[in-house]
């Protein structure tokens, strides 16, 4: 009656739970797209996608930034105000004095690296440190650009306004981001160390690796993608505002989790994170618009969509053993 399958599994083990989990972000994205297509068939066009997804690119980049931090068991509560700060620098210094602008942006990535080092060396809770940093970035953003305005550099608007044949630019960009980060984090040999530092830091240190370095690398990458997010955002909107990125902190965390990531244990998925970000961006903007939700209840609908999508993910994967 019993086969030998239970005691001698095949070499390449197929884990159905893992497979379902991996497919979930894509399924939720598909459902949102179907809903939009049903409500407004015209949105399913080259132009429709360009418009709907343009703002998804900065969100996807911020989500990737958050993902690197989550991969080493930390959380970045400052990424939203950081993106706002980068936006303000981009619309002012980067446009007026490009060299200085580049220097400021590189410096801000350096600050991220320092934060990583500080958090590791002093064994600090990242939530509090980045909470403090969220004030700092917000303050700096106001100092750089006291009132909304500024101007995106010409080249940036050009890039964000590209119109490649057949496939809308945001989709191309999303695929490129997902693939590049996937290869970098999931396929390179140092990527394994980085994720291992989230999974079992003691083991990584015992094997002779520097945990300080893994933290610094993860936070620098978060800073880099935060900068890219701010650039992409300003490329779209063409002008800035100190509060422009405030919603990104929570969107980025939700995107990582929606994409199959977990807060601890180094379990993250770059492809999932990008899909999660796209899903959230579509749900929060386009879907609600097409559903004609009254303005008072727009925020609530946003919350409801988050709950539904995450509950689906949780319910489908809840069959954890004791």
């Amino acid at each position, binding site marked *: 009656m019993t086969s030998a399958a239970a005691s001698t599994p*095949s070499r390449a083990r197929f884990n159905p739970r893992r497979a379902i989990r991996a497919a979930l972000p894509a399924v939720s994205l598909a459902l949102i797209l179907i809903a939009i297509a049903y409500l407004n068939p015209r949105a399913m066009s080259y132009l429709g996608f360009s418009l709907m997804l343009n703002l998804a690119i900065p969100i996807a980049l911020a989500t990737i930034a958050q993902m690197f931090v989550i991969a080493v068991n930390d959380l970045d509560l400052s990424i939203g105000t950081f993106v706002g700060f980068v936006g303000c620098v981009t619309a002012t210094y980067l446009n007026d004095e490009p060299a200085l602008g580049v220097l400021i942006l590189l410096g801000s990535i350096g600050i991220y690296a320092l934060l990583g080092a500080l958090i590791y060396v002093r064994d600090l809770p990242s939530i509090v440190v980045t909470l403090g940093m969220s004030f700092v970035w917000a303050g700096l953003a106001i100092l750089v650009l006291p009132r909304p305005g500024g101007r995106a550099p010409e080249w940036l608007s050009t890039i964000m306004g590209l119109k490649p044949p057949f496939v809308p630019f945001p989709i191309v960009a999303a695929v490129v981001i997902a693939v590049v980060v996937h290869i970098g984090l999931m396929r390179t*040999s140092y990527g394994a160390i980085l994720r*291992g530092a989230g999974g*079992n830091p003691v083991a990584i240190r*015992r*094997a002779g690796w520097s945990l300080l370095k893994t933290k610094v690398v993860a936070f620098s990458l978060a800073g880099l993608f935060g900068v890219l997010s701010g650039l992409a955002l300003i490329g779209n909107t063409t002008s800035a505002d100190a509060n422009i990125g405030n919603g990104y902190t929570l969107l980025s965390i939700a995107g990582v989790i929606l994409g199959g990531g977990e807060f601890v244990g180094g379990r993250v998925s770059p492809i999932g994170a990008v899909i999660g970000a796209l899903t959230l961006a579509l749900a929060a903007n386009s879907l609600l618009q097409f559903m004609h939700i009254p303005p008072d209840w727009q925020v609530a609908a946003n919350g409801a969509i988050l709950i539904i999508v995450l509950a689906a993910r949780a319910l489908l994967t809840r069959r954890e053993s004791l």
Partner: protein
Amino acid sequence: MVGQATNIVRLDGVEKHFGAVRALDGVDLRVDAGECVGLVGHNGAGKSTLMHVLAGTLAPGQGRITIAGSEQPGYSVSLAHELGIRCVFQELSLCPNLTVAENARVMHPGLTGIGWRRRAGDLIVGKLDEIFPGHGIGAGDVISDLSIGRRQMVEVARAFTETDKPVKLVILDEPTSSLDAHSAGQLLAFVRRAVANGQGIILISHLLGEILGNSDRVVVMRDGKVVVADRADAFDRDKLVAAMGAEHHERATPAAAAGAARGEKPVRIRARPERQSDGAELVAHQGEVIGLAGLAGHGQTRLLLQIFEAAYRRKAGFEVQAPVAFVAGDRQSDGVFPLWSIAENVGIRSIAAMRKGLLISPEREAELADAWRQKMKIRTPDMNNPILSLSGGNQQKALFARALASDAVIILMDDPMRGVDIGTKLEVYDLIREEALKGRTFLWYTTEMDELQNCDHVYVFRNGRIVADLRSGEVTEEKVIQSSFKEVA
């Protein structure tokens, strides 16, 4: 002088103090190429600290470390790795979120560049094939999907993998604690092959038979010192136990009480495993010690957890008639509250009973803690010390105290003696017997044959099912092993 060259490692007068505790108090040790050194001693004797010193994860306070004839003043993890010294720690040091191949890569800084994943996979699976033929582990498997036994196999195999540097010495700390008898046999056979190839091995185990059967030399530690070191054939079990300094106990005659026919006392537990297709079920009566046997990871722990759940909430197929308490085997993940004192750790199961009015009474809490310190012989000057100040065996005693001090009538034990020294074990066996005579019921999952001898009745598990149901007189190693491998129709 000629022997000097074959020394892989030599320690002279190594000391390590943690505050006032002398974990190592002047240890001399040498390991030669082509030699397996068995290292034994009670919990807290200093074995683990010594291991950490050898692995480079702890710097000694005093003394010299000499590797392959040259002294190493600035010894460190990376230097140990460079010199071919590897360590398999008792707590698993794999990254659960990474694959088997990626975990192999963590060990080898040189595994980079195009195709590193394939090379890492070949390396580790090759070694697994060599040590544990038929292991059933794939290079792409994520560690958290593997059973604890398979994880330990990966851990052991990884320590023997070589890329640029040859492996000279491997330290194995309780390497068979999570392995079933079959895999443990494979590992010990491999240890002998490795030794024959000129590698050195330090084998730490509480299973004295394992030490006597596989070591060339045996080193006994006590109170941070090496007390005896001699050829393995100079020892037998009793001599070894005497050298370790345990009080000599008469083996408790199994279950004098069990002479009475089963079923006279009231039934406390009925439980049918989910995958049981025939009518077999586990039954436990008042005052019985019931053993759950079989290979590791064949549904014993799962059944214990389900019984635990059923005690709080009605559950189909389960009948639990009295309050339960659980004694964890995996202290880190299932048992200890690391920020708390010993007293708080012991008391948590009984906080509701220690109330005076609405508030927990500090006096009752202290009374309970002290009573159980004496009863369990927990070695600490003050029960208000942090739980982590205790050695592993004493932490385990605190977990026993937590369960026994409670109002629970049924005690579920999930292989609780993993890595516990023999002196502690004998003390706990007596206590279990004593409590059973008072009417408590014990369910005892264990992987060690010796412990099954203490049970009134033993159920053998395979693939989540009960495959044999043995009375105390019938429990023999042969029978258990036979049933463990039996294919059920």
